[in-house]
């Protein structure tokens, strides 16, 4: 299909420059006025002694309209899913449905407080319990904690449970196996929990090399952390064999659920041998993501790990009411203040209920279809390093364009000029010069076509005028940033002397 009849996606637009709010400050300006004092005045010096602070330093003094304009102008510099496709691979930047926001703002929920008594928190507890049941059903696991604040904390919680489980058997074991296609957080998590990390090579089809795993597996291995589908967007087709190899030697299978958007309603990790996994509500379950969060990273486990779940857990009491249970002697303890990012539980549950089982299944199918549509239409224009079928994302390489000296990062910078957020560049590391593209199910065919046309057009530009692509972006507010200088000589804070 041609997009020629459609309005061009990107165009020039006046963008207002905006300095730091400190630069607008002048003495005496204010955006507040206090009412007359109606309580006895106290002397702060008397109460606080030396702790009283009279000089507030460089706090900006600005008027109300300056504050409004400051943040409104900054907001116009944003790129967001509400403006267009956000194809960051493995990030699942899907639409955040407005109905989620509506439900999260229902008065009793929005004004609930974690310290209010259980008997008047039954609705909130019911939401936590119902969401837990839904996620357990979707993953095929036995028990869950909603507490972790996001994916990486979910991993940490999961591995703390793995460690506690092995310790309860008398031996914490020594190492965690991690495929070379894993998310970077996986080895970081394993190291944080005190395990040595051992790398596992992928085979030529982009999957875990099962024979190599068999050779590396022994009773020092506490767990294997696998992402499925992996970061190449490929489903680990021998996942059941991987699970058996782990289990035969007493190891556990951890699944990074970042890519669960490719599986919901189709297969359940609990059914293919996973013992513990985290979910990203801010990816798969449509809660806000990337600056709009916070995230939420529930961890689901099989029965034998349930005693180690963080406290408290939601339980049904003898009288039928819900409450928190703290008395769990084998628990790894609390991992997050209060009960986790509750606002996200409401949104995720709203998403699950709005879609229902068939809707969630359709969502998964559409996400996979969208990725494969992009793959089919861009195959040949960009090099496809692995021909194994793609799931929810597709990974190309810059092999063809790098002959002209144009690398994945340059292509991504040029994509900004076409009105899209860049895809993920240079990851996964096992593909040199990777372009990792995840459209999600949110994108209509029209937006996908605009993206495909943009990518094709950039590939043509590389052939005709590579320098033009190397200098991109041309239409953005600012041109190419010196990322190297920013990393080598970072300026970490504003000082009055920096003002221009």
């Amino acid at each position, binding site marked *: 299909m041609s997009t020629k009849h459609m309005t061009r996606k990107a165009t020039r637009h006046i963008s207002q420059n905006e300095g730091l709010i400190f630069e607008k400050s002048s003495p005496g300006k204010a955006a507040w006025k206090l009412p007359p004092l109606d309580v006895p005045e106290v002397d702060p010096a008397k109460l606080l002694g030396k702790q009283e602070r009279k000089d507030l330093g460089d706090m900006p003094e600005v008027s109300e309209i300056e504050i409004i304009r400051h943040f409104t102008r900054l907001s116009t510099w944003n790129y967001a899913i509400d403006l267009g496709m956000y194809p960051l691979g493995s990030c699942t930047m899907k639409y955040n449905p407005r109905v989620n926001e509506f439900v999260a703002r229902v008065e009793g929920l929005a004004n609930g407080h974690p310290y209010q008594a259980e008997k008047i928190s039954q609705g909130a507890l019911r939401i936590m319990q119902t969401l837990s049941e839904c996620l357990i059903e979707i993953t095929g696991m036995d028990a869950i904690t909603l507490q972790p604040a996001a994916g990486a904390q979910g991993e940490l919680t999961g591995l703390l449970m793995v460690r506690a489980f092995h310790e309860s058997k008398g031996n914490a074991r020594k190492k965690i196996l991690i495929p070379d296609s894993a998310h970077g957080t996986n080895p970081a998590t394993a190291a944080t929990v005190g395990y040595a990390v051992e790398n596992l090579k992928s085979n030529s089809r982009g999957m875990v090399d099962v024979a190599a795993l068999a050779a590396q597996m022994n009773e020092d291995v506490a767990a294997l952390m696998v992402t499925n589908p992996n970061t190449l967007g490929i489903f680990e087709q021998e996942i059941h064999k991987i699970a058996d190899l782990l289990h035969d030697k007493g190891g556990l299978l951890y699944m990074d659920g970042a890519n669960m958007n490719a599986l919901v309603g189709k297969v359940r990790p609990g059914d293919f041998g996973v013992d513990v996994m985290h979910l990203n509500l801010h990816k798969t379950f449509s809660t806000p993501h990337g600056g709009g969060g916070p995230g939420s990273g529930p961890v689901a486990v099989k029965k034998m790990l349930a005693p180690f779940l963080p406290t408290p857990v939601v339980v049904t009491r003898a009288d039928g009411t819900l409450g928190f249970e703290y008395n769990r002697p084998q628990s790894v303890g609390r991992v997050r203040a209060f009960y986790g990012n509750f606002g996200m539980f409401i949104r995720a549950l709203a998403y699950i209920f709005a879609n229902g089982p068939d809707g969630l299944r359709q969502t998964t199918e559409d996400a996979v279809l969208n990725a494969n549509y992009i793959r089919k239409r861009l195959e040949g224009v960009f090099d496809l*390093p692995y021909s194994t079928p793609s799931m929810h994302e597709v990974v190309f*390489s810059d*092999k063809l364009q790098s002959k002209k000296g144009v690398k994945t990062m340059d292509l991504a910078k040029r994509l900004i000029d076409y009105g899209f957020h860049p895809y993920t560049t*240079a*990851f996964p*590391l096992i593909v*040199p*010069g990777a372009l990792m593209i995840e459209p999600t199910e949110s994108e209509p065919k029209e937006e996908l076509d605009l993206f495909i046309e943009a990518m094709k057009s950039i590939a043509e530009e590389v052939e005709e005028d590579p320098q033009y692509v190397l200098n991109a972006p041309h239409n953005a507010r600012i041109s190419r940033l010196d*990322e*190297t200088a920013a*990393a*080598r000589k970072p300026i970490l804070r504003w000082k009055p002397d920096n003002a221009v």
Partner: protein
Amino acid sequence: MGYPDDRKYTKEHEWITADGTVGITHYAQDSLGDIVFVELPKVGTEIRAKKPFGTIESVKAVSDLNAPASGTVTAVNEELTTDPEKVNKDAHSAWMLKIKIKDPAEMNSLLSAADYEKFVSEEKH
């Protein structure tokens, strides 16, 4: 790119001279891109062949630096803490460590300049 034949190379893209000077190859710095940080061990540290002795961070990624041979660190190139770009400019003179080699026989399994050059030309995509 010619690889100097006064030293040996690993498939992980490190080089080592007979007197125990260690660095990374031109191919490694080129694949990493602009290097922004190099983390090296202290003098006196024992390092083991094929095991990580430090990390190198570029604008793209953080990677392990693997020891080409076992030994004790006798000197560290402090210049790289402030000027990591020296590795990009000339990887074969920007050394990272000097080690007292524990077992010179370990060096026999490493690649010659010609073999390494052949290896990277195959690895190149």
